[in-house]
């Protein structure tokens, strides 16, 4: 018993509460299907992500990228050339290139993390 703010004249009440609390503590309530009822009321389980999903997603992105390069080689070359020309035409410094690479890397990794997320 932790609530023992007793006055002398309250002993009988303390005793009564103690008896009631003891019977409460020792009275086990039989489960009688309660747990099953609770489990039935839980929200439905989410479908687990199969183990094969991640490698398949990576492979599909790889195939798509390779397919794009094969199907449109001139387009890929043109885009690369234009990008290079644009880059060369810029008055860029080493730190600027570093920042650009960092941004590009961050974007790539974010996209990969999003594509490979569990849910």
């Amino acid at each position, binding site marked *: 018993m932790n*609530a023992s703010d007793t006055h002398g004249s309250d002993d*009988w009440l303390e005793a009564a509460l103690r*008896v009631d609390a003891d019977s*409460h503590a020792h009275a086990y309530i039989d489960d009688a299907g*309660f*747990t099953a009822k609770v489990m039935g009321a*839980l929200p439905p389980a989410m479908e687990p992500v199969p183990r094969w999903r991640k490698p398949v997603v990576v492979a599909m992105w790889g195939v798509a990228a390779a397919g794009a390069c094969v199907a449109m080689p001139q387009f890929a070359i043109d885009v690369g050339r234009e990008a290079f020309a644009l880059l060369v035409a810029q008055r860029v410094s080493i730190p600027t290139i570093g920042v650009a690479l960092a941004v590009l890397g961050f974007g790539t990794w974010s996209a990969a993390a999003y594509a490979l997320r569990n849910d």
Partner: protein
Amino acid sequence: MASPDTDAALIARVVVNDDRHAFAELVRRHQSTVRACLRKLTAGNHALADDLAQETFVLAWRNLKSFRQEARFSTWLYRIATNCWLADARKRKEELLGDTDTEIADDEGRDDSAAAGDFSRDAALKMDLEKAMRVLSDGERAAIVQCYHNDLTHEEAAYVLGLPVGTVKTHVLRGKQKLKAQLGAWQQ
């Protein structure tokens, strides 16, 4: 024979693997105490207590990831159960406070005990105590149940009720004064 998993191990299995069997084991372990606590809070309304207990465990399942193990799992469950009961009590205010003005007649308990024949004095007092608990305010009743029936310290009761420790002590004191007034006939 393997020793049974601790609550902490079962909780980890639920949080990490979404393990429903582990949660079912937690429910089996704690259903009796949670339902008994709610039966006290609802003044013996078993059907309502069981509904609230079910709500308690469903909420526990949903919020288990936020359980930081600052308190015992059972204490955390008492906290959810008490909140469920308080929310329900607010909805049913009129019903719950219906009998507050009714003094327990001196002869009422005696008649009950006489009718039962072999009822012991303790059993009769227990019945009167349960009736007397109905005159307490929600806060007073919750404080008495947590401190006496659930055997929590004032600090633990304060955590369960979301109140300062001083307020819990005041609720206990006032609750006992009201019980004393209601059960005056038993003082002799």
